[in-house]
């Protein structure tokens, strides 16, 4: 930005300067009256790329996926009132999945605050429960410090979204730019080195264990602990199951990989967890979709739980060995002391379960099976390929049949389960990792929730490949209706547009594929094309995701197991 350091800056200019200081190169947003000056300052700022979305929800999801793909905090802008409230779903999504994000919202001027003014919403009040922290800036002199604090809070410890609300007059007022400002956060604590790591205890417990399992979550990816995890698993010969958020933290083509566990996890992962005598939980939070019935979850196991958030330890399950800290640092501390172990009988048992209950589906020559599409994408993908999914059946098939091999390559809405996440997530991932092949795997229902972001792809020339698993249903709800409501498909039949014509309307090549014999070829062609592509895979409409643990059931009581 071309402003001399000594000149006072407007609040809006201070925001740009502070973003530059934080290393921000990309912002996702949508302008409006209350952020008029912010966008005016952005106009003069050559180092920050702005991606104009079509709805603020798209900005938040894109910023979220940008953060997941790059490891850097995602940044989004929205105007006051409706702009700000439209961000809320995306902010909540980032909160539930512990994603570092800083959201800037415009606000009415300070003299209009609290008067139900035009486009006023109490966004700090609204986002209180779904942000790690938030700020309403009342004095331009505090702005640089607050932005510095916001990025610090968002990206350290257990990451999360932080919102900064900017009254319009604060963005117009002037102040000297002071950087790096002193942070005033006496109550903000980041555990690091692993409070309570008792290395001899780990050695003893691990050496005594006959049937250990590692259960790895998103925290492993956040802390960059993948290589330590691999070392631990290989040195001590422990099978590894991951959560949805943890997909990619351990190579899924490794012989020790059990894939995902839980409601739609693999049968062998669920059997292994149920029968293990030691469960090593790393950066995972024992979500109900993972544990099923708590009473029957890993009933014979001692539990080691490593998490940077002390509140996660003991929240859902009883933990014998709690460790508060960064997973990577904790593993780096204990790894050298751990002995090389063999668990031949246990690994043989796990192998037996893998053979007996593999992931399977019935192939068809006449209808495309959704699993076939995902498998083909997985086979085509290289290590750098990023898959962003939407939410629903296709998401769970992707979790089952897409083998993620590297961290930050599988991006999905876990905790909140936000339909409409996939397409804007693909945008964020592609912007953050321009060299990567980015695939969006979407359901026809989910895609329609944020389909307007196709225009964002076109405007910003993003080569995102979109595979629609088109079954004409809100598939996951339909599956539940089939299983739990005697097949009464209440309002889950959903029509869509002609996706080929829709693609054309947005200036994107689109193809409809109905023949199972053409799946692979269509994917290969799409991959070879330079720009974005939409592939509408018309799939068997009543296919179900199996295995499935009914909600609240025990992990070993899987529907569709052993088909």
């Amino acid at each position, binding site marked *: 930005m071309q402003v001399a350091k000594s000149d006072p800056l407007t609040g809006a200019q201070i925001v740009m300067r502070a973003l530059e200081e934080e290393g921000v190169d990309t912002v996702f947003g949508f302008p409006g009256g209350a952020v008029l000056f912010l966008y005016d300052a952005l106009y003069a700022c050559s180092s920050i790329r702005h991606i104009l979305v079509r709805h603020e929800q798209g900005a938040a999801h894109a910023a979220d996926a940008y953060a997941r793909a790059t490891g850097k905090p995602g940044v989004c802008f929205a105007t006051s009132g409706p702009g700000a409230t439209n961000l809320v779903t995306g902010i909540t999504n980032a909160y539930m999945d512990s994603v570092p994000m800083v959201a800037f919202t415009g606000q009415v001027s300070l003299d209009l605050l609290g008067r139900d003014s035009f486009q006023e919403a109490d966004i*700090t*009040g609204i986002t*209180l*429960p779904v942000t790690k922290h938030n700020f309403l800036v009342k004095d331009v002199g505090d702005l640089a410090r607050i932005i510095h604090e916001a990025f610090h809070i968002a990206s350290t410890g257990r990451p999360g979204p932080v919102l900064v609300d900017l009254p319009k007059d604060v963005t117009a007022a002037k102040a000297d730019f002071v950087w790096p400002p002193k942070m005033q*956060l*006496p*109550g903000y604590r980041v555990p690091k080195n692993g409070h309570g790591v008792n290395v001899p205890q780990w050695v003893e417990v691990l050496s005594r264990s006959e049937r250990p399992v590692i259960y790895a979550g998103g925290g492993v990816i956040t802390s960059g602990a993948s290589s330590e995890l691999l070392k631990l698993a290989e040195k001590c010969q422990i099978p590894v199951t991951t959560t949805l958020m943890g997909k990619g933290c351990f190579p899924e083509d490794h012989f020790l990989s059990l894939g995902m566990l839980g409601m739609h996890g693999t049968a062998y992962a669920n059997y292994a967890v149920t029968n293990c005598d030691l469960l090593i939980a790393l950066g995972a939070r024992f979500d109900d979709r993972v544990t099923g019935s708590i009473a029957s979850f890993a009933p014979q196991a001692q539990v080691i739980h490593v998490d940077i958030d*002390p*509140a996660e330890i003991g*929240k859902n399950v009883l933990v014998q060995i709690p460790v508060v800290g960064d997973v990577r640092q904790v593993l780096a501390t204990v790894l050298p002391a751990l002995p090389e172990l063999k668990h031949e009988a246990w690994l043989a048992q796990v192998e037996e379960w893998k053979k007996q209950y593999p992931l399977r589906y019935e192939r068809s020559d006449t209808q495309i099976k959704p699993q076939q599409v995902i498998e083909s994408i997985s086979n085509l993908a290289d290590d750098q390929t990023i898959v962003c999914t939407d939410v629903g059946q296709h998401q769970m098939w992707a979790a089952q049949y897409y083998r993620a091999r590297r961290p930050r390559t599988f991006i999905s809405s876990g905790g909140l389960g936000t339909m409409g996440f996939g397409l804007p997530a693909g945008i964020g991932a592609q912007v953050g990792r321009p060299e990567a092949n980015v695939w969006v795997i979407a359901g026809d229902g989910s895609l329609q929730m944020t389909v307007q972001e196709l225009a964002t792809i076109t405007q910003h020339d993003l080569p995102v490949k979109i595979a629609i698993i088109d079954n004409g249903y809100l598939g996951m709800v339909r599956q539940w209706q089939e299983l739990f409501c005697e097949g009464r498909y209440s309002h889950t039949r959903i029509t869509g547009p002609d996706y080929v014509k829709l693609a054309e309307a947005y200036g994107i090549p689109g193809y409809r594929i109905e023949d199972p014999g053409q799946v692979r070829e269509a994917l290969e062609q799409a991959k070879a094309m330079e720009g974005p592509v939409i592939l509408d895979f018309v799939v068997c409409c009543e296919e179900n995701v199996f295995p499935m643990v009914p909600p609240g059931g025990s992990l070993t009581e899987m529907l569709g197991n052993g088909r």
Partner: protein
Amino acid sequence: MRHTLAVLVENRPGVLTRVAGLFSRRGYNIESLAVGTTEDPKVSRMTIVVDGDDHVIEQVCKQLYKLVDVIRLDDITHEEHVDRELILIKVDADPSTRGEIVQIVEIFRARIVDIGKDSLIIEATGDQGKINAIESALVPFGIREVVRTGKIAMVRGAKYRHE
């Protein structure tokens, strides 16, 4: 079991909302919450009384401690501490009952702070047991209004001083 939490927070707008909101959204029950400034104008102290089993209290403490505005948190239930509550009671009092009420007030070392035509306002401070006792002692006369501050507490001795 009822626990008393001593919480030092930053004296900023919205902090009370953050604390109270955390209790409501996670389904914990606040029995009482008293807040005021400390010797440091940048710091406020909250005394929170919360009911729950060990698991609930542990989660309450951990979740509270996660708030960026919470500087320090101590569960002082099992510490040696002094606690007080202030109560104002407006009680029916005609000439025939006034003498008896005055006697009760003296027994509890409380004070009459206002006299109306047919009512009295009584002020009492003490631990919750005493406050409950004086309130129930006055019930037979007819209580019109009661306002209680909720408990405030401080650990005995030199511990927990805020730097």
